[in-house]
């Protein structure tokens, strides 16, 4: 039972990291139809800025320092995302393939610049000592950092939901995902919603970047790779443009992957791809996705 809980919660923790990447991808795709390959660079930018903040704040990183690093890293990634959207994406209005291509270019350039500055080896990320302890959950000893991943993901899910549900811009975003042309026809400027979505997606990815660098024991320009791909898988399984769908799919994939890996090493990735193929065959629009007209 202990191992069962341990693997389950570790899986949910991993799923939380996937969700942080996938939520932005899903909204950006749902609203604008942009396949954002630069999302991995948002994650890396957030991770490096977070690292910079955490090392500046003194030799002993406290919990407050870490939270601050997460927020600043998220903000930096959000602003970077906003810049990319303004400089490149908006100029390729409705040329979806070209938009995807440009984001591929961005991810290459960001990777090259960060790689040139910091090298491609892992650099230790300073974490609070509490992260190294274990928390007793139902008899299982859970590494404390997993709890932080889950809490952050849940917090962002709630914030996301509240924003989409209760604010005007959230209403425009939801309407835009549903039918962008109609929102445009009603005379509402969707452009601001685009920028908001890019900023929010970048923010979540940046926060995710800080957590991913804790999970992978350090920062490097290469940490984003597998998370971006898992992010895409989560978005496809959860349904494009659906944030709750992403959350559900992320948790599902995290847990299934962890359990498969526990029984046979390396089986996890394989099972996830089989799951993806299965979902595509049975429900091509994803778990909570809507059928496109």
């Amino acid at each position, binding site marked *: 039972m202990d191992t069962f809980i341990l693997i389950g919660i570790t899986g949910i923790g991993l799923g939380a990291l996937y969700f942080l990447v996938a939520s932005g991808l899903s909204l950006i795709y749902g609203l604008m139809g942009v396949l954002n390959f630069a999302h991995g660079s948002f994650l890396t930018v957030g991770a490096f800025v977070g690292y910079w903040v955490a090392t500046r704040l003194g030799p002993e990183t406290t919990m407050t320092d870490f939270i601050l690093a997460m927020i600043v890293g998220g903000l930096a990634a959000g602003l970077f995302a906003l810049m990319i959207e303004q400089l490149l994406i908006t100029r390729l209005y409705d040329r979806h393939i070209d938009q995807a291509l440009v984001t591929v270019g961005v991810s290459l350039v960001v990777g090259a610049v960060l*790689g040139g500055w910091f090298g491609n080896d892992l650099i230790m990320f300073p974490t609070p000592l509490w992260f190294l302890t274990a928390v007793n959950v139902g008899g299982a000893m859970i590494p404390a950092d997993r709890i932080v991943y889950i809490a952050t993901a849940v917090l962002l899910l709630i914030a996301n939901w509240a924003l989409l549900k209760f604010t005007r811009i959230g209403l425009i975003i939801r309407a835009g995902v549903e039918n962008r042309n109609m929102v445009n026809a009603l005379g509402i400027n969707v452009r601001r919603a685009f920028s908001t979505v890019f900023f929010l997606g970048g923010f979540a990815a940046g926060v995710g970047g800080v957590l991913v660098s804790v999970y992978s024991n350090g920062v490097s320009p290469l940490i984003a790779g597998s998370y971006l791909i898992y992010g895409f898988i989560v978005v496809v399984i959860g349904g494009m443009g659906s944030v709750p769908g992403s959350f559900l799919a992320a948790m599902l994939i995290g847990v299934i992957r962890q359990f498969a890996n526990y029984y046979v090493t390396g089986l996890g990735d394989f099972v996830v791809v089989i799951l993806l193929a299965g979902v595509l065959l049975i429900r091509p629009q994803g778990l909570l996705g809507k059928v496109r007209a």
Partner: protein
Amino acid sequence: MLRWKYSRPLLAALLVALALAPMFTSLPLGKPGLQQTLAVAFIWGALALTYDLLFGFTGLLSFGHALYFATGVYVSCILINHEIVSWWLAAIIATVASGVLAALVGAASLRTTGITFAMVTLAFGEAGHVIVGRNFFNLTGGENGIALNADFVPQFWIGVVNTKYIYWTALLALIITYLVIWWVTESSAGRVFAALRDNEQRVQVLGLDTQKFKLLSFVISGTLAGMLGFVMLIAAGSAAPRFAESSVTIALLLMVVIGGAVTRWGAVLGGIFYSFASTRMQDLTQQESFKSIPEWIGGPIAEPALLLGLIFIFIVMFAPGGLSGAYYRLRMKALARKHS
């Protein structure tokens, strides 16, 4: 499509020159170093062409093309190393296996379209990379890959003095790929591919099975990539997980966009340029004069991805059609001037 009327004699002359050059040891091309670099560049050029068939001609943005290439590399290497079949049969089996895999993956992922298709192919391609890296049954050698056992392939492919044979093999593979793609794209199926790219609904209205034609394009492209995988195995001398990475497909995409899609020679040129530039950039940045550039600029420049990425963004934003597109635009202008 606008054609260059002098292209055929000039192309033939260029090919003869490229084929004969390694014979003269006094020329730069007589040296094994450049021969090896160009052999690899030719393979990338051919691979970019197979990607152009998907992306340029059929309008399918696949991010998993590396899967079929890597299948060719690994299947042929495993068959040869374990002495299961002779090298030429291994090459054929590897090519067919890539085609079969392309048919299976294509059948599942072509249920989606556009951007979703891109994501799904990416996921399948990445699964291939993971499987290769995990070293199941001790077959793929994990992260280190497997070295080709030189005893089981013809001796003219082995050793530095014989680099010119690798060069010729790669050139031959490029020519074969070019001829096949040329034949496919000019055939009636090729017309349907182009029509699918331009207006899928219209093709459907004409009563054609769009899925079948897309799958055909996907399988042809994957099969050719598998064959080139065997040639890469000969040129590189080993099968490594880097051939299965998604960055391979992204590199192919860059090559096609930089060279210009749908012109065939554009993709080949883009591939050769990209491969050549990445290799040479690394040599260039090792030189003494480069050390004088401050670290914060010099570091990023030393990564070939920076310059290639910037060129790529520039072409997508401001010069769609890449090198070959720019060439045709210039010619169009010249023609218009002549006739006005």
